């Protein structure tokens, strides 16, 4: 009974949801529409008399017209020959950042989840404090550091700072997963004479696999999303540019080929969208875990 809505109520709810979704999805719809429109159509303004404004028909033609095609999706590889490379770089960078982050995150998360020790809450707080900073405040010394080790204009220039800003979140997320593994299992393992490290490797890690996958995917999506600031500051080499930086360069051109640029952008977000679609349920449960009262 409580969850039943009256008709006006129902209409209001669905209407509001439609509005909300329109706001969230409008840029994607428009990006897709732009990618379908040939340039002549894209840069066409109807001839108007003085004082006349765009009519409804003209406006609608941006969503449907006979000359729409997927041409931009094939032209883009010719206009930007490095595009496959950019996409590869993006995926590669995100993968590398995920692997390095997990190597640092797993042991730390285990320690925070399982032991009470001196400096526990202080150090955890300090880790989380890193989330408060933007990479932008560290750019100058990082630039110097990377130059000193000859890492500017390499993948490392984007991997090294990228990892630093994902480790704190990773520790926090994985910690809450590991806390759910019953402690009795470890005790049993200790009783059988297993060492602590052996226990971590052979008892905890296998049980933590679902959590590890979720944290790994969350880090991957984060790493894929943050490829801009460090990329435009520490790397000028097209061979190592991730997709957002590559497309951004595209905007600097005299005449922006918006249809192709939108096509490239949509192709570029496909990897994360696919991963998200498959992992959606687990990801959301894992991320919002802290928001739910236990």
């Amino acid at each position, binding site marked *: 009974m409580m969850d039943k809505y009256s008709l006006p109520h129902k209409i209001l709810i669905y209407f509001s949801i439609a509005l909300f979704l329109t706001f969230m999805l409008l840029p994607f719809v428009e990006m897709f529409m732009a990618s379908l429109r040939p340039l002549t159509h894209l840069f066409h303004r109807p001839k108007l008399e003085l004082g006349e404004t765009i009519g409804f028909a003209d406006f609608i033609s941006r969503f449907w017209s006979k000359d729409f095609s997927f041409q931009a999706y094939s032209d883009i590889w010719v206009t930007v020959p490095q595009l496959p490379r950019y996409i590869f770089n993006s995926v590669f960078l995100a993968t590398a950042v995920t692997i390095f982050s997990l190597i640092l995150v797993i042991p730390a998360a285990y*320690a925070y989840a399982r032991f009470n*020790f001196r400096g526990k809450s202080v*150090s955890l707080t300090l880790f989380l404090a890193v989330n408060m900073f933007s990479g932008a405040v560290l750019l100058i010394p990082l630039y110097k550091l990377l130059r000193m080790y000859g890492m500017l204009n390499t993948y490392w220039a984007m991997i090294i700072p990228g990892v630093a800003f994902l480790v704190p979140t990773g520790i926090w997320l994985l910690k809450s997963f590991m806390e759910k593994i019953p402690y009795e299992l470890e005790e049993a393992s200790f009783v059988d004479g297993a060492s602590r490290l052996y226990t971590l490797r052979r008892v905890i890690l296998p049980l933590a696999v679902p959590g590890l996958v979720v944290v790994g995917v969350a880090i991957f999506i984060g790493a894929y999303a943050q490829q801009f600031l460090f990329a435009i500051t520490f790397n000028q080499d097209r061979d190592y540019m991730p997709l957002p930086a590559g497309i951004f360069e595209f905007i600097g051109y005299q005449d922006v080929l918006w249809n192709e640029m*939108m096509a490239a952008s949509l192709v570029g977000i496909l990897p994360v969208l696919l991963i998200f679609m498959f992992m959606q349920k687990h990801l959301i449960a894992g991320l919002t875990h*802290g928001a739910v009262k236990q």
Partner: protein
Amino acid sequence: MNQFIQMFKPKTKAQTTTLFAWALISPAAIYMLLIVVWPLVETFRLSFTNSNIGTLIEGYDYIGWANYEKVLGGRKFPAIVNRTFYWMFLSVGLKMILGLIGATLLASNIRARGVIRALVMPPWIIPIAIGCFGWLWLYNGHFGLLSNFIEMVGITDGPFSFLAYKKSAFYSAVVTDVWIGTPMVTLFFLAAMQGVPRDLYEAAYVDGASRWYRFRRITMPQIMPTVITMALLSAIWTFNSFEIIWILTEGGPRGATTTLIIDTFKTAIFSYKFGAGATRAVLVVLILSVFSLIYLAVLGRVSKKFGYAGVVK
């Protein structure tokens, strides 16, 4: 030597645990010291120098507080600080309101809830930069959807370039920032709402409480910790927001969207004034530290009052 090692050998079980725990944490801790803490200290040191592109070869000098005097006494700086805070409060406020509305809608008993929830997420999971490319096109003056739309319905009588005028550029950037920030806020509010025990609602319903009353008296107090923590975290991230403004306007037109972060980046990276840029970075870090302290204090309070700590990222 042997004695030295003996000194550090753990004597009790608690010590063994501490040692083992720290051994596990040390890789991450050392990494953070190197990549975050050391650069922070370096930034602080550089802020007292005149380091710039010209001093790369012959070396820079320490110039005391000169950079700070210049920044804080500068004509533009107060305006930039004001703008940053305005940007932050406006954007966070909108994210909170939209997040609450969105979460309430998604929590209601409707069809295809899962699908709708998934459709709300994309702005959050895709690279911020790519979302901004889409908005760049939406804001286009002659051919953009928004400009054409307001022309069609008669608000303007010709093309309107959203990013070309000071005021409209600022608010356009806010809208994009809200677009990117809202999904996460919605998601966390939704999770918090779904965690509210159902019997509370049922009891209120039986007593004849209206929907609005139930929202105000049950939902809001129950999800308050999440709202507070999300507001603070959102504030910090919005304050730090870089890509959105940089891609849409590069801080323009005529500085209308230059926030502290953009100013820092422009000075340090685009004008190669490393010392002056570092000074701005230090000021940003100081402001953020105040936020963080507030955040931690509030978090402590909230967890005491509500028994749990809301969310952390």
